[in-house]
C-alpha cells in the first residue's frame, strides 16, 4: 500500500538526514527516483525551488512535496509524519539521556565522518541536477546554462539570499523563454 510505503520510505530518509537540509536530496534521489520510480529527475528538480522558497525546513518541505506529488494531500501528511518520526523519537531519547552533549566531544568525530560521506553523495546529486537542468534533452540548453551560471555567481560569490535568486530565476525563465 502506497501510504505505508511512503511512511517507511520517509522514516528512512528522516533517520539519515544530517547536517543541514540539503542532505535530503541524495536520499530522495535514491528512494524516489532510483528505487521506487516515484519521480522523474525533472520533477525532483522542481522540488528544490518549491521547497526553498516556502517557509519551513527544506528537508520537511521536500518530504511533503514528494508525498503530495505521488499520493495527494493524505500522502503529503503521511510522508511528513514519516520524516518527523525519527526526529521525535531520537530527540526524546537524547533529551532524557543527556542534555549536555557538548561534553561528549567524541560525537564531533562521528558527525565529521558522516558529513564527509554525505558530501560525496550530495556532489553526485549536484552533478545530476545540473546535467538535468542544462541538458534536458539531447542538446545543451544555453539559456538554462546562462541562468544557472548567473545564479551561481550571485549565491556563491555575492552571497545573495537563495530565495531572492530563485525568484529571480523564475522571472528570468518567464521573460527569456517566452520571447
Amino acid at each position: 500500500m502506497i501510504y505505508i510505503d511512503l511512511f517507511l520510505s520517509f522514516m528512512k530518509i528522516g533517520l539519515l538526514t544530517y547536517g543541514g537540509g540539503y542532505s535530503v536530496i541524495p536520499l530522495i534521489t535514491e528512494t524516489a527516483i532510483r528505487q521506487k520510480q516515484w519521480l522523474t529527475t525533472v520533477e525532483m528538480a522542481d522540488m528544490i525551488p518549491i521547497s526553498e522558497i516556502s517557509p519551513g525546513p527544506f528537508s520537511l518541505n521536500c518530504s511533503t512535496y514528494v508525498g503530495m506529488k505521488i499520493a495527494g494531500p493524505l500522502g503529503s501528511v503521511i510522508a511528513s509524519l514519516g520524516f518527523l518520526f525519527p526526529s521525535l523519537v531520537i530527540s526524546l531519547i537524547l533529551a532524557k539521556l543527556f542534555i549536555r552533549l557538548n561534553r561528549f566531544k567524541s560525537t564531533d568525530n562521528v558527525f565529521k565522518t558522516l558529513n564527509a560521506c554525505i558530501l560525496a553523495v550530495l556532489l553526485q546529486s549536484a552533478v545530476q541536477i545540473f546535467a538535468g537542468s542544462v541538458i534536458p534533452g539531447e542538446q545543451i540548453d544555453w539559456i538554462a546554462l546562462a541562468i544557472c551560471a548567473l545564479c551561481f555567481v550571485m549565491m556563491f560569490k555575492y552571497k545573495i539570499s537563495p530565495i531572492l535568486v530563485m525568484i529571480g530565476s523564475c522571472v528570468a525563465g518567464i521573460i527569456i523563454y517566452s520571447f
Partner: protein
Amino acid sequence: MTRETERPGLFKLFITSLLLSLFAFGGGSTIIAMAKRKYVDDQKWISEKEFMDRITLAQAVPGATTINTSILLGHYLRGAKGALVCAFATAIPPVVIISAITGIYMVIRSNAVVMNAMKGMRAGAAALVASVTISLIQSLFKKKDWLMAALFVIIFVTIQFVRIDTYIILLAGLLIGIIYAVVEWRKNDIH
C-alpha cells in the same frame, strides 16, 4: 542570569510554535533567532544557557534542525506531551503550505508561462545545490583534515564506477565515524 517565569500550558505552546513556524521565512537561522527572542527574551520560559544547549543537541538528531529544536524546547517546558505539541505545531504550517503549492503546481504545470518559469527555476536550483555543495567542499579542504577529505574523494570516485545504495554509504559512514571516535577517544585517554 534570567529568572524563568511560569511555564506555558500546552495550548499556549502550540499557538506560539505555530506562529513562529508560520512567520519564519528564510530557513533555520531565522526561526532560531525568532524563537530565542520569544522563549528567552520576551517570555523568559527558558534561560539562554538551556536554550543554547538544546540547539546544540538538535544538531545531533537527524531530520530538520528547527523541528528538533522545537521538540527539545517542548520537552523541556512540558515533557513528552510538550514535545509532541511543538513538533506538530512547527510542522503544520509548512506541510499545509507546501501541499497547497504542490497541488497548484500539479494543475498548472502544463501552462506555457509556468513551464518557462519552472525551466528558469530548475537552472536556479541547479546553481543553488552546486553553490551549497562547493561551499561545503571548500570548508572541508580548508580544515586540512586530510582523513575526511580522503574519505570524501574515495566515496565520490567509487560511486562514479559502482552503483552503491546511498543508505548503505551513509550507514557505513556512521559506522566508520563511531569507530574513528572510539579510536580517538582511547588515544586521548592513554596520554
